[in-house]
Protein backbone atom coordinates (compact mmCIF):
# COMPACT_ATOMS: atom_id res chain seq x y z
CA UNK A 1 0.00 0.00 0.00
CA UNK A 2 2.67 2.47 -0.87
CA UNK A 3 2.16 3.49 -4.50
CA UNK A 4 0.17 6.67 -4.94
CA UNK A 5 -2.99 6.57 -7.03
CA UNK A 6 -4.20 10.15 -6.86
CA UNK A 7 -1.97 13.10 -6.09
CA UNK A 8 -3.34 16.60 -5.55
CA UNK A 9 -0.84 19.38 -4.89
CA UNK A 10 -0.90 23.19 -4.57
CA UNK A 11 -4.55 23.17 -5.54
CA UNK A 12 -6.30 26.55 -5.47
CA UNK A 13 -9.75 27.32 -6.80
CA UNK A 14 -11.62 30.60 -7.00
CA UNK A 15 -15.22 31.07 -8.08
CA UNK A 16 -15.54 34.33 -9.98
CA UNK A 17 -18.71 36.21 -10.83
CA UNK A 18 -18.95 39.67 -12.37
CA UNK A 19 -18.20 41.57 -9.18
CA UNK A 20 -17.21 39.00 -6.55
CA UNK A 21 -14.61 36.32 -6.27
CA UNK A 22 -14.72 33.57 -3.66
CA UNK A 23 -11.66 31.59 -2.76
CA UNK A 24 -13.12 28.10 -2.30
CA UNK A 25 -10.04 25.89 -2.10
CA UNK A 26 -6.82 27.09 -0.55
CA UNK A 27 -3.55 25.26 -1.19
CA UNK A 28 -4.85 21.69 -0.95
CA UNK A 29 -2.36 18.84 -0.78
CA UNK A 30 -3.80 15.37 -0.74
CA UNK A 31 -2.56 12.00 -1.86
CA UNK A 32 -4.48 8.80 -2.09
CA UNK A 33 -2.49 5.57 -2.04
CA UNK A 34 -3.42 2.53 -4.08
CA UNK A 35 -6.16 0.51 -2.36
CA UNK A 36 -6.57 3.20 0.26
CA UNK A 37 -9.92 4.49 1.52
CA UNK A 38 -9.90 8.20 2.38
CA UNK A 39 -12.87 10.28 3.52
CA UNK A 40 -13.17 14.03 3.31
CA UNK A 41 -15.39 15.60 5.94
CA UNK A 42 -16.20 19.20 6.64
CA UNK A 43 -18.96 21.79 7.07
CA UNK A 44 -21.11 22.61 4.06
CA UNK A 45 -19.46 25.16 1.81
CA UNK A 46 -15.94 23.94 2.58
CA UNK A 47 -15.48 22.97 -1.06
CA UNK A 48 -15.25 19.22 -0.51
CA UNK A 49 -17.57 18.42 -3.41
CA UNK A 50 -15.69 20.90 -5.61
CA UNK A 51 -12.47 19.14 -4.67
CA UNK A 52 -13.95 15.82 -5.73
CA UNK A 53 -15.21 17.24 -9.04
CA UNK A 54 -11.72 18.57 -9.74
CA UNK A 55 -10.22 15.15 -8.95
CA UNK A 56 -12.73 13.62 -11.39
CA UNK A 57 -11.80 16.06 -14.15
CA UNK A 58 -15.38 17.38 -14.24
CA UNK A 59 -14.10 20.80 -13.19
CA UNK A 60 -10.85 21.88 -14.82
CA UNK A 61 -10.88 25.56 -13.89
CA UNK A 62 -8.27 25.60 -11.09
CA UNK A 63 -4.65 26.30 -10.28
CA UNK A 64 -2.33 23.55 -9.12
CA UNK A 65 -1.75 19.97 -10.04
CA UNK A 66 -3.96 16.90 -10.06
CA UNK A 67 -2.36 13.64 -11.13
CA UNK A 68 -3.60 10.09 -11.45
CA UNK A 69 -0.78 7.53 -11.57
CA UNK A 70 1.65 10.30 -12.44
CA UNK A 71 -0.35 11.66 -15.38
CA UNK A 72 -2.16 15.00 -15.32
CA UNK A 73 -5.96 14.83 -15.06
CA UNK A 74 -7.29 16.68 -18.09
CA UNK A 75 -10.93 15.66 -18.09
CA UNK A 76 -13.37 13.01 -16.95
CA UNK A 77 -12.53 9.41 -17.77
CA UNK A 78 -13.48 5.85 -16.91
CA UNK A 79 -10.31 5.57 -14.83
CA UNK A 80 -11.93 7.86 -12.26
CA UNK A 81 -15.28 6.34 -11.38
CA UNK A 82 -17.69 8.92 -10.01
CA UNK A 83 -20.71 8.30 -7.82
CA UNK A 84 -23.02 11.30 -7.62
CA UNK A 85 -25.27 12.27 -4.71
CA UNK A 86 -28.23 11.00 -6.72
CA UNK A 87 -27.88 7.68 -8.52
CA UNK A 88 -28.25 9.23 -12.00
CA UNK A 89 -29.24 5.98 -13.66
CA UNK A 90 -30.75 6.07 -17.13
CA UNK A 91 -34.47 5.73 -16.35
CA UNK A 92 -35.20 4.05 -19.70
CA UNK A 93 -32.70 1.24 -19.21
CA UNK A 94 -32.95 -1.89 -17.08
CA UNK A 95 -30.42 -2.57 -14.30
CA UNK A 96 -28.18 -4.68 -16.54
CA UNK A 97 -28.33 -2.19 -19.38
CA UNK A 98 -27.53 0.66 -17.01
CA UNK A 99 -24.46 -1.21 -15.80
CA UNK A 100 -23.38 -2.03 -19.36
CA UNK A 101 -24.23 1.58 -20.43
CA UNK A 102 -22.43 2.13 -23.75
CA UNK A 103 -21.25 -1.48 -23.97
CA UNK A 104 -23.32 -4.18 -25.64
CA UNK A 105 -24.70 -7.01 -23.54
CA UNK A 106 -24.55 -9.20 -26.66
CA UNK A 107 -20.78 -9.26 -26.22
CA UNK A 108 -20.00 -12.35 -24.10
CA UNK A 109 -17.21 -10.66 -22.18
CA UNK A 110 -19.41 -7.69 -21.27
CA UNK A 111 -22.28 -9.99 -20.33
CA UNK A 112 -19.95 -11.93 -18.05
CA UNK A 113 -18.57 -8.78 -16.39
CA UNK A 114 -22.04 -7.32 -15.90
CA UNK A 115 -23.19 -10.53 -14.21
CA UNK A 116 -20.12 -10.40 -11.99
CA UNK A 117 -20.92 -6.81 -10.99
CA UNK A 118 -24.55 -7.66 -10.28
CA UNK A 119 -23.27 -10.44 -8.03
CA UNK A 120 -20.83 -8.04 -6.36
CA UNK A 121 -23.48 -5.43 -5.50
CA UNK A 122 -25.94 -8.19 -4.61
CA UNK A 123 -28.69 -7.36 -7.08
CA UNK A 124 -29.24 -10.82 -8.51
CA UNK A 125 -32.84 -11.17 -9.67
CA UNK A 126 -33.14 -7.45 -10.47
CA UNK A 127 -31.27 -7.53 -13.80
CA UNK A 128 -34.38 -6.69 -15.79
CA UNK A 129 -35.86 -4.15 -13.35
CA UNK A 130 -36.21 -0.47 -14.29
CA UNK A 131 -34.79 2.23 -11.98
CA UNK A 132 -38.33 3.31 -10.98
CA UNK A 133 -38.79 -0.13 -9.43
CA UNK A 134 -35.67 0.12 -7.24
CA UNK A 135 -35.19 1.60 -3.78
CA UNK A 136 -32.68 4.41 -3.24
CA UNK A 137 -30.05 2.05 -1.86
CA UNK A 138 -30.42 -0.41 -4.73
CA UNK A 139 -30.19 2.38 -7.31
CA UNK A 140 -26.98 3.65 -5.75
CA UNK A 141 -25.57 0.09 -5.84
CA UNK A 142 -26.36 -0.07 -9.56
CA UNK A 143 -24.50 3.23 -10.01
CA UNK A 144 -21.50 1.77 -8.15
CA UNK A 145 -21.60 -1.36 -10.30
CA UNK A 146 -21.73 0.82 -13.44
CA UNK A 147 -18.59 2.67 -12.34
CA UNK A 148 -16.72 -0.46 -11.20
CA UNK A 149 -17.41 -2.37 -14.44
CA UNK A 150 -14.97 0.04 -16.08
CA UNK A 151 -12.21 -1.01 -13.63
CA UNK A 152 -11.41 2.52 -12.41
CA UNK A 153 -8.10 3.37 -10.75
CA UNK A 154 -10.01 5.31 -8.15
CA UNK A 155 -13.67 5.58 -7.16
CA UNK A 156 -14.79 9.08 -6.19
CA UNK A 157 -17.96 9.19 -4.11
CA UNK A 158 -19.82 12.46 -3.52
CA UNK A 159 -22.04 11.97 -0.44
CA UNK A 160 -23.47 8.85 -2.10
CA UNK A 161 -25.61 7.78 0.86
CA UNK A 162 -26.71 11.24 2.01
CA UNK A 163 -30.25 10.82 0.76
CA UNK A 164 -30.80 7.38 2.30
CA UNK A 165 -32.45 6.59 5.63
CA UNK A 166 -30.24 5.53 8.57
CA UNK A 167 -30.83 1.77 8.21
CA UNK A 168 -30.20 1.70 4.49
CA UNK A 169 -27.17 3.91 4.98
CA UNK A 170 -25.57 1.50 7.48
CA UNK A 171 -26.30 -1.37 5.16
CA UNK A 172 -24.83 0.50 2.19
CA UNK A 173 -21.67 1.30 4.15
CA UNK A 174 -21.23 -2.40 4.85
CA UNK A 175 -21.77 -3.26 1.17
CA UNK A 176 -19.28 -0.59 0.14
CA UNK A 177 -16.65 -2.09 2.47
CA UNK A 178 -17.43 -5.50 1.04
CA UNK A 179 -17.05 -4.19 -2.51
CA UNK A 180 -13.82 -2.39 -1.59
CA UNK A 181 -12.37 -5.55 -0.02
CA UNK A 182 -13.15 -7.63 -3.09
CA UNK A 183 -12.36 -5.02 -5.70
CA UNK A 184 -9.38 -3.25 -4.08
CA UNK A 185 -10.11 0.04 -5.85
CA UNK A 186 -8.85 3.21 -4.15
CA UNK A 187 -11.75 5.15 -2.69
CA UNK A 188 -12.16 8.86 -2.05
CA UNK A 189 -15.40 9.62 -0.25
CA UNK A 190 -16.93 13.01 0.52
CA UNK A 191 -19.36 12.89 3.41
CA UNK A 192 -20.85 14.96 6.21
CA UNK A 193 -21.43 11.90 8.37
CA UNK A 194 -18.67 11.41 10.99
CA UNK A 195 -19.66 7.81 11.75
CA UNK A 196 -19.60 6.97 8.08
CA UNK A 197 -16.09 8.38 7.72
CA UNK A 198 -14.79 6.44 10.75
CA UNK A 199 -16.56 3.23 9.80
CA UNK A 200 -15.14 3.21 6.28
CA UNK A 201 -11.82 4.95 5.94
CA UNK A 202 -8.09 4.47 6.51
CA UNK A 203 -7.70 8.21 6.85
CA UNK A 204 -10.09 11.08 7.48
CA UNK A 205 -9.37 14.50 6.01
CA UNK A 206 -11.07 17.28 7.98
CA UNK A 207 -11.71 20.47 6.03
CA UNK A 208 -12.33 24.05 7.05
CA UNK A 209 -14.66 26.41 5.23
CA UNK A 210 -14.16 29.82 3.60
CA UNK A 211 -11.62 29.29 2.21
CA UNK A 212 -11.66 25.50 2.05
CA UNK A 213 -8.43 24.13 3.42
CA UNK A 214 -7.30 20.93 5.06
CA UNK A 215 -7.42 21.32 8.84
CA UNK A 216 -6.41 17.88 10.00
CA UNK A 217 -5.73 14.40 8.70
CA UNK A 218 -6.76 11.72 11.17
CA UNK A 219 -5.58 8.13 10.59
CA UNK A 220 -8.02 5.41 11.57
CA UNK A 221 -6.07 2.36 12.73
CA UNK A 222 -8.97 0.06 13.55
CA UNK A 223 -9.41 -3.36 11.99
CA UNK A 224 -12.35 -4.03 9.71
CA UNK A 225 -15.22 -4.65 10.27
CA UNK A 226 -15.41 -1.87 12.81
CA UNK A 227 -17.66 -1.85 15.84
CA UNK A 228 -19.72 1.33 15.72
CA UNK A 229 -20.38 1.28 19.48
CA UNK A 230 -16.90 0.25 20.67
CA UNK A 231 -14.68 2.51 22.79
CA UNK A 232 -11.99 3.12 20.12
CA UNK A 233 -14.72 4.18 17.69
CA UNK A 234 -16.05 6.68 20.23
CA UNK A 235 -12.58 8.04 20.90
CA UNK A 236 -12.03 8.63 17.21
CA UNK A 237 -15.37 10.30 16.99
CA UNK A 238 -14.39 12.69 19.76
CA UNK A 239 -11.16 13.37 17.92
CA UNK A 240 -12.92 14.11 14.60
CA UNK A 241 -15.57 16.18 16.34
CA UNK A 242 -12.82 18.09 18.10
CA UNK A 243 -11.13 18.85 14.80
CA UNK A 244 -14.46 19.89 13.29
CA UNK A 245 -15.44 22.03 16.26
CA UNK A 246 -12.09 23.67 16.17
CA UNK A 247 -12.98 24.52 12.60
CA UNK A 248 -16.39 25.83 13.54
CA UNK A 249 -15.25 27.68 16.66
CA UNK A 250 -13.36 30.14 14.52
CA UNK A 251 -16.51 30.99 12.66
CA UNK A 252 -18.18 33.25 15.23
CA UNK A 253 -19.59 35.86 12.92
CA UNK A 254 -23.21 34.85 13.54
CA UNK A 255 -25.85 37.49 13.45
CA UNK A 256 -29.28 37.03 14.94
Amino acid at each position, binding site marked *: MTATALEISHLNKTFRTADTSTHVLDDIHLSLKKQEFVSIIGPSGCGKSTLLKIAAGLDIDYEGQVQLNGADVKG*PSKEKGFI*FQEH*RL*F*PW*ATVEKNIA*ADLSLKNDEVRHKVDEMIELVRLKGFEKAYPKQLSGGMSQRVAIARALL*RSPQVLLLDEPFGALDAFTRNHMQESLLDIWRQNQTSMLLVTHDIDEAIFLSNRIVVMDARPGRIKAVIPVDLTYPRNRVGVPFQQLRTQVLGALNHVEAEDVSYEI
Partner: protein
Amino acid sequence: MTGKERTKRFLLGALIPVAVLVVWQLAVVNGLVSRQLFPPPTSIFRDFYDMLMSGELPHHLGISVLRAMIGFFVGGGLGLLIGLGSGLYKRAEQVLDPTIQMLRTVPLLAITPLFILWFGFGELSKILLIAMGAFFPLYVNAFLGVRNVDSKLFDVARVLEFSRFHQLTKVVLPAAMPNILLGVRLSLSTAWLCLVVAELMGADQGIGYLIQDARSYMRTGVVFVGIVIFAVVGKLTDSLVRLLESRLLQWRDSYRG
Protein backbone atom coordinates in the same frame (compact mmCIF):
# COMPACT_ATOMS: atom_id res chain seq x y z
CA MET B 1 -56.64 -5.25 -16.62
CA THR B 2 -59.12 -8.14 -16.29
CA GLY B 3 -61.49 -9.16 -19.08
CA LYS B 4 -64.47 -7.87 -17.15
CA GLU B 5 -62.83 -4.51 -16.55
CA ARG B 6 -62.00 -4.28 -20.26
CA THR B 7 -65.58 -4.98 -21.33
CA LYS B 8 -66.83 -2.38 -18.88
CA ARG B 9 -64.42 0.20 -20.25
CA PHE B 10 -65.45 -0.57 -23.81
CA LEU B 11 -69.16 -0.27 -22.95
CA LEU B 12 -68.59 3.05 -21.19
CA GLY B 13 -66.75 4.43 -24.20
CA ALA B 14 -69.41 3.18 -26.62
CA LEU B 15 -72.28 4.71 -24.65
CA ILE B 16 -72.47 8.10 -26.39
CA PRO B 17 -71.83 6.96 -30.02
CA VAL B 18 -74.46 4.20 -29.74
CA ALA B 19 -77.01 6.59 -28.22
CA VAL B 20 -76.42 9.08 -31.03
CA LEU B 21 -76.90 6.38 -33.68
CA VAL B 22 -80.14 5.14 -32.09
CA VAL B 23 -81.62 8.65 -31.78
CA TRP B 24 -80.58 9.42 -35.36
CA GLN B 25 -82.15 6.26 -36.76
CA LEU B 26 -85.40 6.88 -34.85
CA ALA B 27 -85.52 10.54 -35.92
CA VAL B 28 -85.19 9.64 -39.62
CA VAL B 29 -87.65 6.72 -39.47
CA ASN B 30 -90.25 8.97 -37.80
CA GLY B 31 -89.74 11.67 -40.42
CA LEU B 32 -88.35 14.28 -38.02
CA VAL B 33 -85.35 15.06 -40.27
CA SER B 34 -84.82 14.92 -44.02
CA ARG B 35 -83.81 11.51 -45.34
CA GLN B 36 -81.92 13.28 -48.14
CA LEU B 37 -79.62 15.19 -45.76
CA PHE B 38 -79.47 12.64 -42.96
CA PRO B 39 -79.69 9.13 -44.38
CA PRO B 40 -80.36 6.67 -41.56
CA PRO B 41 -77.34 4.75 -40.16
CA THR B 42 -78.69 1.48 -41.59
CA SER B 43 -78.70 2.92 -45.10
CA ILE B 44 -75.20 4.37 -44.63
CA PHE B 45 -74.05 0.95 -43.55
CA ARG B 46 -75.60 -0.57 -46.69
CA ASP B 47 -73.72 1.98 -48.85
CA PHE B 48 -70.55 1.06 -47.01
CA TYR B 49 -71.13 -2.65 -47.58
CA ASP B 50 -71.84 -2.18 -51.31
CA MET B 51 -68.74 -0.03 -51.81
CA LEU B 52 -66.62 -2.52 -49.89
CA MET B 53 -67.85 -5.45 -51.95
CA SER B 54 -67.46 -3.66 -55.30
CA GLY B 55 -63.83 -2.90 -54.43
CA GLU B 56 -64.44 0.85 -54.84
CA LEU B 57 -63.77 1.66 -51.20
CA PRO B 58 -60.55 -0.41 -50.77
CA HIS B 59 -59.16 1.14 -53.97
CA HIS B 60 -59.73 4.76 -52.91
CA LEU B 61 -58.69 4.06 -49.32
CA GLY B 62 -55.44 2.50 -50.53
CA ILE B 63 -54.65 5.60 -52.63
CA SER B 64 -55.39 7.93 -49.69
CA VAL B 65 -53.34 5.94 -47.20
CA LEU B 66 -50.41 5.80 -49.61
CA ARG B 67 -50.50 9.59 -50.12
CA ALA B 68 -50.72 10.24 -46.38
CA MET B 69 -47.87 7.84 -45.64
CA ILE B 70 -45.50 9.25 -48.27
CA GLY B 71 -46.27 12.79 -47.11
CA PHE B 72 -45.84 11.81 -43.48
CA PHE B 73 -42.52 10.06 -44.02
CA VAL B 74 -41.09 12.88 -46.12
CA GLY B 75 -42.33 15.75 -43.92
CA GLY B 76 -42.18 13.99 -40.56
CA GLY B 77 -38.76 12.51 -41.31
CA LEU B 78 -37.36 15.91 -42.22
CA GLY B 79 -39.02 17.46 -39.17
CA LEU B 80 -37.46 14.84 -36.92
CA LEU B 81 -33.96 15.23 -38.38
CA ILE B 82 -33.97 19.02 -38.45
CA GLY B 83 -35.59 19.18 -35.00
CA LEU B 84 -32.90 16.91 -33.53
CA GLY B 85 -30.22 18.93 -35.33
CA SER B 86 -31.40 22.29 -33.99
CA GLY B 87 -31.86 20.74 -30.56
CA LEU B 88 -28.30 19.43 -30.50
CA TYR B 89 -26.49 22.35 -32.09
CA LYS B 90 -26.99 25.92 -30.95
CA ARG B 91 -25.69 27.16 -34.31
CA ALA B 92 -28.27 25.16 -36.27
CA GLU B 93 -30.99 26.50 -33.99
CA GLN B 94 -29.92 30.11 -34.54
CA VAL B 95 -29.92 29.67 -38.30
CA LEU B 96 -33.03 27.51 -38.78
CA ASP B 97 -35.44 28.05 -35.94
CA PRO B 98 -36.58 31.66 -36.62
CA THR B 99 -37.47 30.83 -40.23
CA ILE B 100 -39.23 27.60 -39.31
CA GLN B 101 -41.23 29.30 -36.56
CA MET B 102 -42.30 31.98 -39.03
CA LEU B 103 -43.40 29.44 -41.63
CA ARG B 104 -45.21 27.49 -38.94
CA THR B 105 -47.65 30.30 -38.33
CA VAL B 106 -48.76 30.40 -41.98
CA PRO B 107 -52.12 28.61 -42.24
CA LEU B 108 -51.81 25.61 -44.55
CA LEU B 109 -55.15 26.37 -46.18
CA ALA B 110 -53.83 29.76 -47.24
CA ILE B 111 -50.95 28.31 -49.22
CA THR B 112 -52.90 25.48 -50.82
CA PRO B 113 -53.85 27.66 -53.84
CA LEU B 114 -50.17 28.50 -54.32
CA PHE B 115 -49.21 24.84 -54.22
CA ILE B 116 -51.81 24.09 -56.86
CA LEU B 117 -50.56 26.97 -59.02
CA TRP B 118 -46.98 25.80 -58.72
CA PHE B 119 -47.36 22.05 -58.84
CA GLY B 120 -50.73 21.56 -60.47
CA PHE B 121 -53.45 19.14 -59.36
CA GLY B 122 -51.18 16.11 -59.52
CA GLU B 123 -49.71 13.96 -56.80
CA LEU B 124 -46.76 16.28 -56.13
CA SER B 125 -48.82 19.17 -54.77
CA LYS B 126 -50.83 16.82 -52.55
CA ILE B 127 -47.81 15.06 -51.10
CA LEU B 128 -45.98 18.35 -50.56
CA LEU B 129 -48.99 19.78 -48.72
CA ILE B 130 -49.20 16.70 -46.48
CA ALA B 131 -45.43 16.74 -45.93
CA MET B 132 -45.55 20.38 -44.91
CA GLY B 133 -48.33 19.69 -42.42
CA ALA B 134 -46.46 16.71 -40.95
CA PHE B 135 -43.17 18.60 -40.69
CA PHE B 136 -43.94 21.09 -37.92
CA PRO B 137 -45.28 18.91 -35.07
CA LEU B 138 -42.30 16.56 -35.32
CA TYR B 139 -39.85 19.44 -35.66
CA VAL B 140 -41.16 21.24 -32.58
CA ASN B 141 -41.38 18.12 -30.43
CA ALA B 142 -38.03 16.63 -31.45
CA PHE B 143 -36.39 19.98 -30.64
CA LEU B 144 -38.20 20.15 -27.29
CA GLY B 145 -37.29 16.55 -26.54
CA VAL B 146 -33.58 17.20 -26.99
CA ARG B 147 -33.73 20.32 -24.85
CA ASN B 148 -35.54 18.42 -22.11
CA VAL B 149 -32.68 15.95 -21.63
CA ASP B 150 -31.46 16.10 -18.04
CA SER B 151 -28.01 17.72 -18.19
CA LYS B 152 -26.98 15.61 -15.18
CA LEU B 153 -27.13 12.55 -17.42
CA PHE B 154 -24.64 14.24 -19.74
CA ASP B 155 -22.20 14.42 -16.81
CA VAL B 156 -22.62 10.67 -16.45
CA ALA B 157 -21.99 10.20 -20.16
CA ARG B 158 -18.81 12.29 -19.82
CA VAL B 159 -17.54 10.31 -16.82
CA LEU B 160 -18.24 7.02 -18.61
CA GLU B 161 -16.56 8.41 -21.75
CA PHE B 162 -19.46 7.83 -24.15
CA SER B 163 -18.59 8.44 -27.77
CA ARG B 164 -20.49 11.21 -29.56
CA PHE B 165 -22.56 8.48 -31.25
CA HIS B 166 -23.43 6.79 -27.95
CA GLN B 167 -24.29 10.15 -26.38
CA LEU B 168 -26.89 10.44 -29.12
CA THR B 169 -28.20 6.87 -29.11
CA LYS B 170 -27.92 6.10 -25.39
CA VAL B 171 -28.78 9.45 -23.84
CA VAL B 172 -30.40 11.98 -26.19
CA LEU B 173 -32.72 9.74 -28.21
CA PRO B 174 -34.15 7.69 -25.33
CA ALA B 175 -34.62 10.82 -23.22
CA ALA B 176 -36.32 12.64 -26.11
CA MET B 177 -38.46 9.62 -27.03
CA PRO B 178 -41.62 10.70 -25.14
CA ASN B 179 -41.60 14.01 -27.03
CA ILE B 180 -40.72 12.39 -30.34
CA LEU B 181 -43.61 9.94 -30.08
CA LEU B 182 -45.96 12.76 -29.21
CA GLY B 183 -44.66 14.53 -32.31
CA VAL B 184 -45.31 11.41 -34.40
CA ARG B 185 -48.90 11.30 -33.16
CA LEU B 186 -49.52 14.96 -33.92
CA SER B 187 -47.76 14.71 -37.29
CA LEU B 188 -49.81 11.69 -38.32
CA SER B 189 -53.08 13.41 -37.48
CA THR B 190 -52.00 16.58 -39.29
CA ALA B 191 -50.94 14.50 -42.31
CA TRP B 192 -54.37 12.92 -42.35
CA LEU B 193 -56.02 16.34 -42.08
CA CYS B 194 -53.95 17.76 -44.94
CA LEU B 195 -54.83 14.71 -47.02
CA VAL B 196 -58.51 15.62 -46.74
CA VAL B 197 -57.78 19.21 -47.74
CA ALA B 198 -55.61 18.09 -50.67
CA GLU B 199 -58.14 15.59 -51.94
CA LEU B 200 -61.12 17.89 -51.58
CA MET B 201 -59.30 20.59 -53.55
CA GLY B 202 -59.23 18.36 -56.57
CA ALA B 203 -58.43 14.72 -57.13
CA ASP B 204 -59.66 11.88 -59.28
CA GLN B 205 -58.96 9.17 -56.73
CA GLY B 206 -58.96 8.79 -52.96
CA ILE B 207 -61.47 9.09 -50.15
CA GLY B 208 -61.62 12.88 -50.52
CA TYR B 209 -62.52 12.49 -54.19
CA LEU B 210 -65.17 9.95 -53.20
CA ILE B 211 -66.77 12.48 -50.86
CA GLN B 212 -66.57 15.31 -53.37
CA ASP B 213 -68.01 13.14 -56.13
CA ALA B 214 -70.85 11.84 -53.94
CA ARG B 215 -71.70 15.38 -52.89
CA SER B 216 -72.24 16.49 -56.48
CA TYR B 217 -74.67 13.60 -57.04
CA MET B 218 -76.36 14.14 -53.66
CA ARG B 219 -75.34 10.64 -52.52
CA THR B 220 -75.27 11.78 -48.89
CA GLY B 221 -74.82 8.24 -47.62
CA VAL B 222 -71.50 7.92 -49.44
CA VAL B 223 -70.37 11.27 -48.01
CA PHE B 224 -71.02 9.87 -44.56
CA VAL B 225 -69.12 6.67 -45.39
CA GLY B 226 -66.13 8.78 -46.45
CA ILE B 227 -66.23 10.83 -43.27
CA VAL B 228 -66.48 7.73 -41.09
CA ILE B 229 -63.57 6.11 -42.95
CA PHE B 230 -61.43 9.20 -42.35
CA ALA B 231 -62.31 9.11 -38.66
CA VAL B 232 -61.73 5.37 -38.25
CA VAL B 233 -58.38 5.31 -40.05
CA GLY B 234 -57.25 8.39 -38.13
CA LYS B 235 -58.17 6.74 -34.83
CA LEU B 236 -56.48 3.48 -35.85
CA THR B 237 -53.16 5.14 -36.66
CA ASP B 238 -53.34 7.06 -33.40
CA SER B 239 -53.94 3.84 -31.48
CA LEU B 240 -50.99 2.28 -33.25
CA VAL B 241 -48.66 5.04 -32.08
CA ARG B 242 -50.08 4.81 -28.57
CA LEU B 243 -49.36 1.09 -28.58
CA LEU B 244 -45.81 1.94 -29.61
CA GLU B 245 -45.68 4.48 -26.77
CA SER B 246 -46.73 1.96 -24.15
CA ARG B 247 -44.06 -0.44 -25.42
CA LEU B 248 -41.20 2.05 -25.71
CA LEU B 249 -42.00 4.17 -22.69
CA GLN B 250 -42.75 1.54 -20.08
CA TRP B 251 -39.79 2.84 -18.11
CA ARG B 252 -41.62 6.07 -17.35
CA ASP B 253 -42.68 6.67 -13.80
CA SER B 254 -45.45 9.19 -14.09
CA TYR B 255 -49.01 9.74 -12.98
CA ARG B 256 -51.44 7.49 -14.84
CA GLY B 257 -54.72 9.02 -13.71
